[in-house]
């Protein structure tokens, strides 16, 4: 079905497809395709390839190292690379902190931090959630007390993905305890090598280590590392949350996962079972709906009529769908899914020739995919946003 792409969009899609086919290392692709965990070096190797091509931050303005991609191009890039088995392009630098810096940062901050993101030399992570502040960021209690030209930061951040791999963290911290909870928050850039930073790994239910708790014990952060005004960090955080979320629908990923489901079902002999067919048909239909909803929202973003809550709609459905595909894939393995030990996921064999290791990736992904309906604003929060903003139910 023709989605109404322009000729230049179609040409761009071909370009991305050809580039990915040629440039994505086979071993990385194989890990992604089989759901096995990626090492830091896997992410970095692929992102280096993109950096060389100038495609790390394609949607950024050219003057900051981007390509001025339209939302359609960003979408095409994500869909094509993801479908082809490229690793998730880690969003912490390029999608999250980068746009905040080039929108609200000082010239010095832009000069210091943007090049490292575009060149894939600096690895960022995000410090928003705290043990007592999950969905409710207004409750956050990590303090930054002014001391001359520095802030002294104390507290901790949790669910910090990839913090153990990161160089820097951008964090929301409380700089004024007396004002209303949403006010009094500032947006700080913190070098993770600073004295007083400790990182505790958190083991996830699928056996992987990607989550962390980051502790700040009298960590000294120069005031020049604050983005924007003091006590207005909430504004920048909200800007960030709304940024580029149309891409979150993960249509390419859904297609890739459905391909694998079909392959496994063919191999395991359940492809003829009616139950499997009903389920596959349901998932394919949901993906078709998600794809066309994404396209409609993309169009709205491009012609300036985007309702503003399109991200919530796509996040809600996209996360639910990849979750369902991941479970259907584990189920398609049947009893063969059982010989999987999450405790061995990270240290265990990752030899792609090992059939059990392949299954391990599939079961691991079934468990891991319980997360997308929680992170980035849980689906309950997304329903709140939709009912308040799209439906006006206040």
């Amino acid at each position: 079905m023709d989605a109404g792409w322009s000729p230049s969009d179609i040409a761009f899609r071909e370009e991305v497809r050809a580039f990915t086919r040629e440039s994505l290392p086979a071993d990385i692709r194989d890990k992604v395709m089989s759901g096995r965990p990626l090492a830091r070096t896997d992410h970095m190797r692929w992102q280096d390839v993109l950096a060389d091509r100038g495609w790390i931050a394609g949607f950024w303005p050219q003057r900051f190292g981007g390509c001025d991609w339209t939302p359609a191009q960003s979408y095409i890039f994500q869909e094509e690379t993801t479908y082809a088995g490229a690793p998730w392009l880690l969003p912490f630098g390029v999608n999250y902190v980068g746009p905040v810096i080039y929108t609200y940062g000082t010239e010095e901050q832009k000069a210091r931090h943007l090049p490292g993101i575009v060149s894939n030399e600096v690895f960022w992570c995000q410090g928003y959630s705290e043990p007592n502040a999950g969905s409710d960021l207004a409750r956050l209690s990590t303090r930054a007390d002014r001391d001359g030209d520095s802030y002294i930061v104390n507290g901790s951040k949790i669910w910090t993905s990839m913090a153990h791999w990161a160089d820097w963290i951008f964090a929301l911290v409380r700089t004024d305890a007396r004002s209303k909870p949403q006010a009094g928050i500032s947006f700080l850039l913190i070098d993770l090598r600073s004295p007083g930073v400790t990182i505790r790994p958190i083991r996830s239910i699928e056996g992987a280590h990607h989550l962390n708790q980051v502790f700040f014990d009298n960590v000294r952060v120069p005031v020049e590392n604050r983005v924007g005004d003091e006590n207005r960090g909430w504004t920048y955080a909200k800007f960030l949350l709304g940024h580029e979320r149309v891409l979150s629908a993960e249509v390419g990923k859904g297609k890739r996962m459905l391909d694998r489901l079909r392959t496994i079902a063919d191999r395991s002999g359940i492809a003829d079972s009616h139950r499997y067919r009903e389920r596959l048909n349901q998932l394919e239909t949901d993906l078709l709906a998600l794809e066309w909803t994404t396209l409609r929202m993309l169009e709205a973003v491009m012609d300036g009529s985007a309702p503003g809550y399109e991200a919530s709609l796509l996040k809600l459905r996209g996360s639910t769908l990849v979750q369902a595909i991941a479970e259907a894939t584990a189920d398609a393995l049947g009893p063969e899914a059982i010989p999987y030990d999450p405790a061995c996921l990270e240290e265990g064999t990752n030899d792609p020739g090992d059939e059990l290791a392949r299954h391990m990736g599939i079961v691991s992904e079934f468990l891991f995919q319980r997360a997308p309906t929680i992170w980035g604003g849980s689906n309950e929060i997304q329903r709140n946003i939709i009912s308040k903003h799209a439906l006006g139910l206040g």
Partner: protein
Amino acid sequence: MKISQTEEQTLLSQSISRYLADRYDDAARRRAEAQACGYDRDTWTEIAELGWLGASVGESAGGFGGPREMAIVLEGAGRAMMAEPLVTACLALSILEAADPSHGSLPGLLSGNSMACGLAAQAGSGLSVTGRNGSRVLSGRFPTVHAGAAADLLVLALPDIAVALDPAARGIDMRAFRGMDGRRYADIVFRDVPLDDGSVLCEGETARPVADRASQVFSVATAAEASGIAARLFEETLAYVAQREQFGQPIGRFQALQHRLADMYVAVEEARSLALAAARSAEDDEAPGRAVSQAVVGTVDRALHVAKEAIQLHGGVGMTEDLPLGAGLRRIKVLQLMPGGAEDHRKRLTT
């Protein structure tokens, strides 16, 4: 990039909404249903004049549109739950367009002076054409033809032949009945109906794409109507929960209901997306494929969910004919169960 609709399509959509808002409320629907033929002939002429029928075919056939424009018309009709036989009439026009765009009946049909029912093979059973050349006869049955008894012409698209028949022709038997959606249907049985040269629109190799087209258009229309109904039932519910007060506040303030309304909203948006996907596929003149069947199943499933939730969230008043919710549920159930409807598509997709 033009994904959802062109400017012309937006204008068409707005004109339809205006007409429906001004002229077609629930009382109008009930009056139409109460007519002997099951719909209102004045309304029919009015909407024909407004171009609702011309929207479904291209210029070569005297119209100005195609599948996407037809879908816009049917989404509007679904929203108003119109009793008028738009699906079947658009289907007839599309078959004529594909088989014989200069067919003499087209001007009268487009102006609303006459009405034709289109019959796609997927809605029939036991269909056969036997004999050779000058002496062929048609047999088979279409058990659920909307407004069949009011048709001036029956236009059939079978895999090997497309024909246009006078409903009064020898061998055509009709039993009229009212369906659970309040509409008039005919159970039409063809028993050795002679096919003369005048009735044959095309045959042999050229008939297959016509039949494919009919199947495609029928699916697009079903998805579009279901998506319109879902949108309407959702809007009714949203308006209701915003004004209905219980326990000291509008019930739309209760979070458990808000989350269900959010899910209804998502279902309506997805139904719209799926209906669009189906229309775009037909625009590209693709053969009827898996995705189109999925679009039909997906829109009808979502519309059914929305209809049930609409009734539940209205409470007692949702169970009454004072509101159009029951009518919506009943119409969606027909779209699900009718021959060639969502369940038939689901069967094809899963076996």
